[in-house]
């Protein structure tokens, strides 16, 4: 058993000349919940996408569950281990497919049994009743769509979940339900989370440690309780914390 289920070392991602990830290193222990915060455009989604094989990295190393990966190729097995919830549920859910199809597809690919039961349970878990099963995704509200995306990631019972702003489209009551659900799933199944959010309240609630990103780099990695004690060195982290207290008219 390796201690770190996910290890990223000196990862570089380029888009033409633009350096989106600049030697990023992150280690996440098995069963840990790891947060990523940072300003818009700092490379948070790019990091998750590179881990998931959706962006190529041109330098550095990636290892998951002791296995090394490069480029964009990922085995079928990889997707049973790692699932991702995207920031933009519109991009990830085909609008002309029913919720049923969207949930069935991954189950079929990976040869799961009891598909009916699994689909019903998954919908139930994310607070969407069976009434939504045969809706098309373009017939759903923003938050309903996000919940379908979460259900689809959980339905394969992965070990590692990459969550990109999973609740930023949800109202507080449904956010609370989803966060509880995610925490429970983590406890029950020993899941590991890597979670991007701009909401420091959510990160401090869900994560044990977090990385702060800026301009394609990780500028610091701190324990979550450091937020409470305001014990961190980067100015940006301080700005984030002040800003999270709400809008002030000047």
């Amino acid at each position, binding site marked *: 058993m390796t201690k770190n289920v996910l290890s990223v070392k000196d990862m570089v991602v380029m*888009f033409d000349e*633009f350096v989106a990830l600049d030697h990023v290193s992150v280690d996440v222990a098995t069963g840990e919940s790891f947060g990523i*915060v*940072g*300003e*818009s*455009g700092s490379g948070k*989604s*790019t990091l998750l996408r590179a881990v998931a094989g959706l962006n190529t990295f041109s330098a550095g190393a990636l290892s998951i569950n002791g296995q090394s990966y490069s480029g964009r190729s990922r085995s079928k097995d990889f997707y049973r281990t790692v699932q991702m919830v995207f*920031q*933009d549920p*519109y*991009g990830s859910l085909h609008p002309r497919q029913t919720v049923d199809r969207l949930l069935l597809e991954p189950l079929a690919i990976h040869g799961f049994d009891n598909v009916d039961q699994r689909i019903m349970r998954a919908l139930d878990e994310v607070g969407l009743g069976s*009434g939504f099963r*045969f*809706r098309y995704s373009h*017939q*759903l*509200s*923003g*938050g*309903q769509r996000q*919940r379908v995306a979460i259900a689809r990631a959980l339905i394969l019972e992965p070990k590692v979940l990459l969550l*990109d*702003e999973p609740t*930023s*489209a*949800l*109202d*507080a*009551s*449904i*956010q*609370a*339900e989803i*966060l*509880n659900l995610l*925490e*429970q799933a983590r406890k029950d199944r020993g899941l590991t989370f890597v979670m991007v959010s*701009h*909401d*420091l*309240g*959510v990160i*401090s*609630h*869900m994560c044990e440690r977090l990385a702060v990103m800026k301009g394609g780099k990780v500028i610091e990695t701190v324990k979550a309780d450091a*937020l*409470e004690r305001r014990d961190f060195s980067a100015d*940006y982290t301080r*700005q*984030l*914390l002040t*800003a*999270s207290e*709400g*809008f*002030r*008219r000047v």
Partner: protein
Amino acid sequence: MSDRLLTVEDLRVSFPTRTGEVQAVRGVSFTLGRERLGIVGESGSGKSQTGRAIMGLTPKHAKITAKTLNFAGRDLLAISDRERREIRGKRIAMVLQDPKYSLNPVSTIGRQIIETLKTHERISTAEAKARTLAMLEAVQIRDPERVFSLYPHEVSGGMGQRVMIAMMLICGPELLIADEPTSALDVTVQLEVLGILDKLVAERGMGLIFVSHDLRLVSSFCDRVLVMYAGRVVEELPSADLSKAQHPYTQGLLNCLPTIGSDRHPLPVLDRKKEWAL
């Protein structure tokens, strides 16, 4: 009130679906002056569909009715499609919840904003480009020149939202409907973007409907807040009085936010009562 921009009375929107009719909006009424009105509410409660109905973006197969849907003296349900198009974009603009989805994937961001501008104003391409770059800068895009030439899939989530805001503000609308305009933005940028919207309301007298699920944000930013639940407005409050909310849904919302330093596992959740949806 002569300053009134918008009157909505008994607005209803419903969709036929395979499993029966979905009533997305069930009799919403409110008025708007040159102010900031917040709409919060649970996911699926009809916030976006309310905004879309005002904007004239309700899907064709849906049924939409209202006793009154009046913008600056015009009956929005009675005017011709052509008049609608003239108002849309120029006088009423809407930042859609799904920014990237609403951008054209095969055209660069710069080209799309210029196009919007040229549909409504007669100006040279050079001037349009200059204004586009200035607008991108105003919404705190760090390197406007680079973003100008990117395609929608090449920008981050937060950049996409700001691009949409820039595109909607560039024609100087009198009414802006912003549907979750800042939900993907990190808090520091979020506040900068709100600052821009705030200035437009204060200086140009724009009316703003700000749809958000973030109560904390709405109460610090808007003058008034409507709370929606299951297609209806269940409560209307001055923002300052949010903590005095009466409806159990609103009260519940205030209680289930995770905050730094509070250790509540699991978070309290709402016990939704059937009668709330009556």
